[in-house]
């Protein structure tokens, strides 16, 4: 009869298992590159480098502009390149919930980093933003625009934000000359599902409920609910 294996003390830390969970989480978070900085206003959010899937019940804003720009990317083989995207900008805006989903391959396994902001109320545009910039590869939903709406504006002539003196910042979207552009006084995009190459909300004027989680496997954001009511004043 062999002697039993020595008992290990209860409550010890399983570093190997901990690392198995923590390392993918850290790598995924680093890969996502989401930035949440406590600033003078509140919180900023930035997602870049790799495509991120997103959904929102509604995005509504004033002084809307869009233009086709070149966005630098890192290809799957690690080399640098660029793709063309439709860069959308809002001077002021409100969001009715936001979910970002990005998949990462780590040590042969797929992990998804899910980031959600806002509440579950389709009647509240609870996230107020300034100078929102979104680099779209594609988006599906309801695209509404109001005021004077111009299509095929020279992208470099699009205007969104103003400087401290109240003058429009020239070419705020950084578009090369002669690219496709859109300019509208108001824009409201409902039930949007899309893929963005870059997502920037440097000024979140309200601090929404934020949840970040790392899930094993490929996990998509839930389908966006139809918004109810009107968004109010951004």
């Amino acid at each position, binding site marked *: 009869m062999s002697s039993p294996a020595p008992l290990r003390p209860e409550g010890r830390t399983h570093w190997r298992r901990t690392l198995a969970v923590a390392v993918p989480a*850290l790598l995924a978070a680093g890969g996502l590159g989401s930035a949440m*900085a406590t600033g003078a206003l509140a919180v900023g959010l930035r997602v870049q480098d790799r495509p991120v899937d997103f959904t929102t019940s509604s995005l509504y804003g004033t002084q809307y502009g869009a233009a086709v720009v070149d966005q630098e990317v890192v290809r799957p083989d690690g080399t640098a390149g660029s793709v063309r995207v439709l860069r959308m900008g809002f001077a002021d805006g409100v969001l009715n919930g936001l979910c970002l989903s990005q998949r990462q391959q780590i040590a042969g396994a797929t992990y998804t980093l899910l980031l959600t902001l806002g509440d579950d109320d389709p009647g509240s545009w609870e996230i107020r933003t300034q100078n929102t910039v979104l680099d779209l*590869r594609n988006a599906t939903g309801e695209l509404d625009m109001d005021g004077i709406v111009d299509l095929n504006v020279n992208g470099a002539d699009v205007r969104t934000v103003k400087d401290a003196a109240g003058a429009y910042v020239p070419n705020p979207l950084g578009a090369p000359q002669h690219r496709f552009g859109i300019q509208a006084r108001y824009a409201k995009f409902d039930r949007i599902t899309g893929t963005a190459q870059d997502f920037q909300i440097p000024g979140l004027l309200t601090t929404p409920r934020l949840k970040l989680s790392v899930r094993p496997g490929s996990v998509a954001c839930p389908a966006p609910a139809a918004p109810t009511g009107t968004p109010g004043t951004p």
Partner: protein
Amino acid sequence: MRGRRKAVAVVAALLLAVATALVSGQPSSAAGRPPAAVTPLGVPFLPSPYPLEVSIDSLVAVSLTVEKDVTIRLSDGTPKNVTKYTFTKLKIRSHMNVTQRADGHTVVIDVPDEGSLGGYDSAGKPETTVMWGNISNVCVRVVFQICQVQGLLEFFGSFIPLTAGAEDFRGTIYAIRTTDDHAALNSTDNPVHLPGTITVTTP
């Protein structure tokens, strides 16, 4: 214990994200460039030199007026002789596709079913949609079917009613402007209503 370790991992991820934030800069989008030196002509803005190929399978509008031989200037400074088309209360009854093929990318706006490029403003006044370019085909059935703008002009004169609808709209359009003179915050009856997909592809 397992849940606790997961919580530690998530907190660590959050901390890393915050650290990333602290070294991240402001948006890269604010790369200032001088505006184009050329000034608009014929259109209130400078259109891109790459036109939009617009197709609408079925549409309805209150009216269409046509102004020929309008000289516009594109953003590269090139003058272009085009026709100016003014629609009032332009609605898409089925499938609109707008495609721009430029050097290095293709932009597609696709609306599979109904949509709008103009409606009534909050004062009840029909909104206008102006297109600068060339409509190569639009079919209107009166006594018989007419599919050319010139034929419609000869039949109706300069004011073409489209209240009965039109089919098979095809045009090469350099610029589109839709105007709502009474736009307001909280407006839900937006003149440009495009339920569909917008895609940018790079070859």
